[in-house]
C-alpha cells in the first residue's frame, strides 16, 4: 500500500467514531416520534375546530362564540390549562368535553345526553374532537394552573385520587397499576407516573393527541375510556363525574407543567 493511501485510510479512520453509542430501542422510538412531530395531523382538527367554534349550528342555529370555558364568555386562549374547574351556572366541576357539551346544549340546542351516548368517531363526537383540538391548541405552551379554591374542586380532587387507586375487575387493575411508579413501561410504551407531576408535555399535559396508529384524534375522554377498557372495567360514561374527577386529580398533580396538546402519539 502506498504511503498516500495509508495516510488517507488513517485520516478516514480518525474521522469515523470508533464505536457508535449503543442505541436502545427507546432511543430509536423517540427519534421516530420526533420525526413524526413535524406536520402533526392534529392541526387539521385544530383548523376544523376553529371553524366549528364560530359556525352557527344546531337547532338554535347559534355559534359557540359566547361559550364560557371558565375565563369568561368567548375566551378560548388559556382556558384549557385551567380545566377541570367549577362552573357557577351548572354548579358542578367540569372538564373541557363536559363543558363543550353544556355549551352545545345551552347555546346551540343540541341534546347533550345523545352526544354523550354516541360512539367515538361518529356523529357529533367527530365535531367534538375538532373543538377539543382547537381549544387545547389555544393553550399550547402554557402551564397548567387548575384552581382548588372552590370546595367542589377540592372534593373532586379527593374523589379523583380515590378513583385513581381503585382496584377492580378480573385483573385487579387500578390506574396506579400502570401509572403509579416512575420509569415503567408496557411493552415499549413508556408510562408517566401520574401520582407525581410527570413533567412538561407528559401524561395529562399531552392530551388531546393525534394517534398515528389509528389516524385518530383522541381527547382525554377517549383516552380514559380506552384505559378502562384495557383495565377490564365496565364502560365509563362520556364526561361522567368519574372521568372529571380523574381529570381534576391529574390536572392538579400536573400543576406548572407545560401543555403540548394536541400532541402526536404512536
Amino acid at each position: 500500500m502506498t504511503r498516500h493511501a495509508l495516510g488517507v485510510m488513517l485520516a478516514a479512520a480518525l474521522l469515523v467514531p470508533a464505536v457508535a453509542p449503543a442505541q436502545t430501542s427507546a432511543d430509536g422510538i423517540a427519534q421516530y416520534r420526533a420525526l413524526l412531530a413535524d406536520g402533526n395531523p392534529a392541526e387539521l382538527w385544530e383548523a376544523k375546530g376553529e371553524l366549528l367554534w364560530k359556525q352557527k349550528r344546531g337547532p338554535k342555529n347559534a355559534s359557540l362564540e359566547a361559550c364560557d370555558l371558565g375565563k369568561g364568555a368567548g375566551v378560548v386562549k388559556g382556558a384549557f390549562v385551567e380545566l377541570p374547574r367549577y362552573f357557577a351556572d351548572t354548579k358542578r366541576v367540569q372538564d373541557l368535553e363536559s363543558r363543550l357539551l353544556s355549551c352545545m346544549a345551552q347555546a346551540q340546542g343540541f341534546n347533550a345526553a345523545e352526544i354523550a351516548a354516541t360512539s367515538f368517531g361518529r356523529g357529533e363526537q367527530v365535531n367534538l374532537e375538532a373543538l377539543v383540538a382547537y381549544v387545547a391548541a389555544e393553550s399550547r405552551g402554557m402551564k397548567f394552573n387548575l384552581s382548588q379554591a372552590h370546595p367542589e374542586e377540592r372534593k373532586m380532587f379527593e374523589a379523583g385520587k380515590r378513583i385513581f387507586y381503585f382496584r377492580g375487575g378480573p385483573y385487579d387493575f387500578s390506574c396506579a397499576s400502570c401509572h403509579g411508579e416512575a420509569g415503567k413501561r408496557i411493552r415499549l410504551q413508556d408510562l408517566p407516573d401520574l401520582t407525581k407531576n410527570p413533567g412538561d408535555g407528559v401524561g395529562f399535559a399531552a392530551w388531546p393527541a393525534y394517534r398515528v396508529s389509528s389516524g385518530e384524534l383522541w381527547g382525554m375522554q377517549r383516552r380514559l375510556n380506552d384505559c378502562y377498557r384495557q383495565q377490564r372495567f365496565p364502560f365509563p360514561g362520556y364526561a361522567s363525574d368519574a372521568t372529571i374527577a380523574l381529570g381534576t386529580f391529574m390536572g392538579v398533580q400536573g400543576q406548572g407543567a407545560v401543555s403540548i396538546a394536541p400532541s402526536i402519539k404512536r
Partner: protein
Amino acid sequence: MSDPMRIRAQTQGGGAVVRVLMSHEMETGLRKDAAGKTIPAWHITEVSAALNGKTVLTAQWGTAIAKNPFTEFVVKGAKAGDKISVSWVDNHGDRRTDEATVA
C-alpha cells in the same frame, strides 16, 4: 366534501419551504374489516403544486403514502407574497385544491 389542506409557505434562502398537511383516509385496499371483507382502496393518486399558476411539482402517489399525509418541499425562486397552490386527485376522481401565500 374533503377537509381543507393546511399549507404553510415560508421564505428560506432563495426560495420557500412549503409544508402541506392533507386530510385523506389513504385506504390501501389491502385491509380487511372485522367481518373479513376487504376495505376498498381510496387514496390520492396525483399531487401537483404551482407557484403563481405555474406547475413546480407533480407526483404520483400509491398505497405506501400514510393517512393524513404530510409533505414538505422547497420551491426555488419563490418570494414573499407569491401564491402557492397544492392540488390532489384520488382514485375516486375526487379532487381538491388549496392555496397559501408565501410568508
